[in-house]
């Protein structure tokens, strides 16, 4: 029992379960799923669908954070990929043809992959602090996206493009499959090869792992490139959800949500050990929290206050001081109760 309690995913899972319980008690309709035309509808399904962009971004962020870095540019990169893809679809004669779609998505994602590699170059080769290296694109990225769309919000009508975030496949939202594929791919690449362990070693001690023969430069570089790539796909999903490339609103604050999801999942910002399952749970927790806030009738504008509370609670739970204090308290309590038990006996 204690071994289960000591597992590092216990707290994240407990938080998610508690949140779901609170929701279910306050509105029983939360867990109900209705089937209409062979498609599932309900709050839980909505959460699965709407969490897809955040899931992609958070997976990339997990790898970057594992290398002791951080990627602030993901939101801006989402805006860029959406802008590129929609501009191509808008300019083409056949917005519904699969070829246009493939070119648009490939172009959007390729651009963010290049930007991600650029971040990696700054961090891994030039040795610039990750926060500031990615801040450059965070500032410039939205400007670039605005230039691509010409300062307007490009809107398109393309049925297959719309399908990606709003369509259904075998009863479940298509976007959910996208995040499942991403989770599986990242998990297989990181955990079924040595890459994950190497990434952790770079995060724990870059210098020592370099001396041990780990090519830390390539690993760090790759982490940022992967983050850029995933942010690109997230941007495609986001723009397909609203069918518009809004350079200012796309992916706003998503970098913060993603960092929060990673931290909620038990991955330390100091780099090293990371947990993909933890990140997945963290993403669902944040998405459920957002849905809860909306349901409670809190104006969306005040929701940052709730996010602040969550951040503070999470970091306090992770803090050594609070943990040590609670542990001492717990020990004192259990010691007394065993003593009481002995006395009673």
């Amino acid at each position: 029992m204690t071994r289960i309690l000591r597992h590092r995913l216990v707290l994240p899972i407990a938080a998610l379960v508690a949140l779901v319980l609170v929701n279910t008690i306050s509105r029983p309709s939360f867990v109900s799923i209705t089937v209409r035309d062979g498609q599932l509808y309900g709050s839980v399904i909505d959460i699965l669908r709407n969490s897809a962009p955040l899931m992609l971004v958070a997976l990339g962020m997990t790898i970057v954070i594992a290398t002791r870095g951080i990627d602030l540019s993901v939101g801006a990169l989402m805006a860029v990929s959406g802008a590129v893809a929609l501009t191509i679809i808008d300019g083409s004669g056949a917005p519904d043809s699969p070829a246009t779609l493939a070119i648009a998505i490939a172009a959007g994602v390729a651009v963010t992959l290049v930007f991600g590699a650029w971040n990696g170059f700054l961090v891994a080769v030039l040795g610039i602090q990750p926060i500031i290296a990615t801040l450059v694109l965070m500032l410039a990225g939205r400007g670039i996206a605005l230039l691509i769309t010409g300062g307007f919000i490009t809107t398109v009508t393309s049925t297959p493009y719309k399908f990606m975030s709003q369509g259904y496949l075998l009863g479940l939202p298509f976007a959910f499959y996208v995040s499942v594929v991403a989770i599986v791919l990242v998990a297989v690449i990181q955990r079924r090869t040595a890459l994950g362990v190497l990434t952790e070693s770079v995060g724990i001690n870059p210098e020592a792992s370099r001396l041990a023969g780990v090519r830390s430069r390539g690993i760090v570089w790759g982490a940022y490139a992967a983050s850029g790539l995933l942010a690109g796909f997230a941007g495609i999903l986001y723009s397909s959800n609203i069918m518009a490339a809004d350079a200012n609103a796309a992916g706003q604050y998503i970098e913060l949500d993603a960092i929060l999801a990673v931290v909620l999942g038990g991955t330390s910002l100091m780099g090293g050990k990371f947990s993909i399952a933890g990140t997945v749970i963290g993403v669902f927790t944040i998405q459920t929290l957002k849905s809860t806030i909306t349901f409670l009738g809190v104006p969306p504008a005040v929701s940052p206050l709730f996010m602040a509370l969550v951040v503070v609670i999470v970091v306090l739970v992770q803090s050594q001081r609070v943990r040590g204090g609670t542990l001492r308290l717990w020990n004192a309590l259990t010691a007394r109760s065993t003593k009481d038990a002995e006395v009673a006996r």
Partner: protein
Amino acid sequence: MSLTTTRPLDGLRARVDRFTSRRASWIPVFAALGILIALLVAGQVYFGNFITPRVLSSLLLDNAYLLILAVGMTFVILTAGIDLSVGAVLAFTAILGARLLSEGFPVVVVIPVMLVGGSLIGLLIGVLIQFFDVQPFIASLAGMFAARGLAFLVSLSSIKVEDPVILWLQTKLFYIDGWFLSPTGIIAIGVVIAGALVLQFTRFGRTIYAIGGNEQSARLMGLPVVRTKLLAYVISGACAGLAGIVFTAYQGAGYPLNGVGTELDTIAAVVIGGTLLTGGSGFVLGSMIGVFVYGTIKTAISFLGAEQSWTRITIGALLLMFVVVQRVIVARSSRR
């Protein structure tokens, strides 16, 4: 080194060498100053009417709030921290002040309340960092969310400010030969001077540099690390509160969505001004130059009539340039 000093012909070179080795941390500031002058001259050549008292005066007028924020941010970054909350705290204090004023509170009460409000959020961030080992990035992120949420809690819509004292801060202009200066500009310059003096000549200021240089050493030397770091965040919060006052005067209203992204502009200005994000090296005067570089780019782009999105792109590019230059400087000095 000894070789160059013995040759009289190389006297100037030796002086430059000596200066660059002893005052290495000033080099980025001079680089920023060079960029600022180059920008101004280029603007003058291109537009013909760029270096005029009117344009230069409005540079200070339009960026007074950013200047105040940058001074507070410099304190925090010098301790190797970061404060992402300043934009949101600015919005919160501004909307709080506007609400209190509209409900009839006198301005002598409202202004201290705004300053204290900002300081309290700064203190909260400092406590999280210092006592719970939370990373500055995350702690100030919580502060940012909290301040933004509080701002919306105070009011969801814009509140007009009609208080004559607040409006006087912006509208009263002192004219000297075509130059003009508003009380907000005077406040900003005063904050810069106070910040520079505190950092250079007080025990507290020197402790900030010591902590940024090496926190462990500073603690072993018996310096009051905890108190100083807390105070740095309180100063940043108080500066954000003051910037809220100045911004309210500038806009003539409070609005909860004010200052979105301002924290990034502030950090960019501080970095362009030559402050190292690793802490321990940088100057308030550099941050002031960084703010003016930012303001000049913004003015030039509005002169060009181009999209304001170019401002962000140019700032991003400049930031990149400075970070690379700083990186080279740090690499050189650590080799020495």
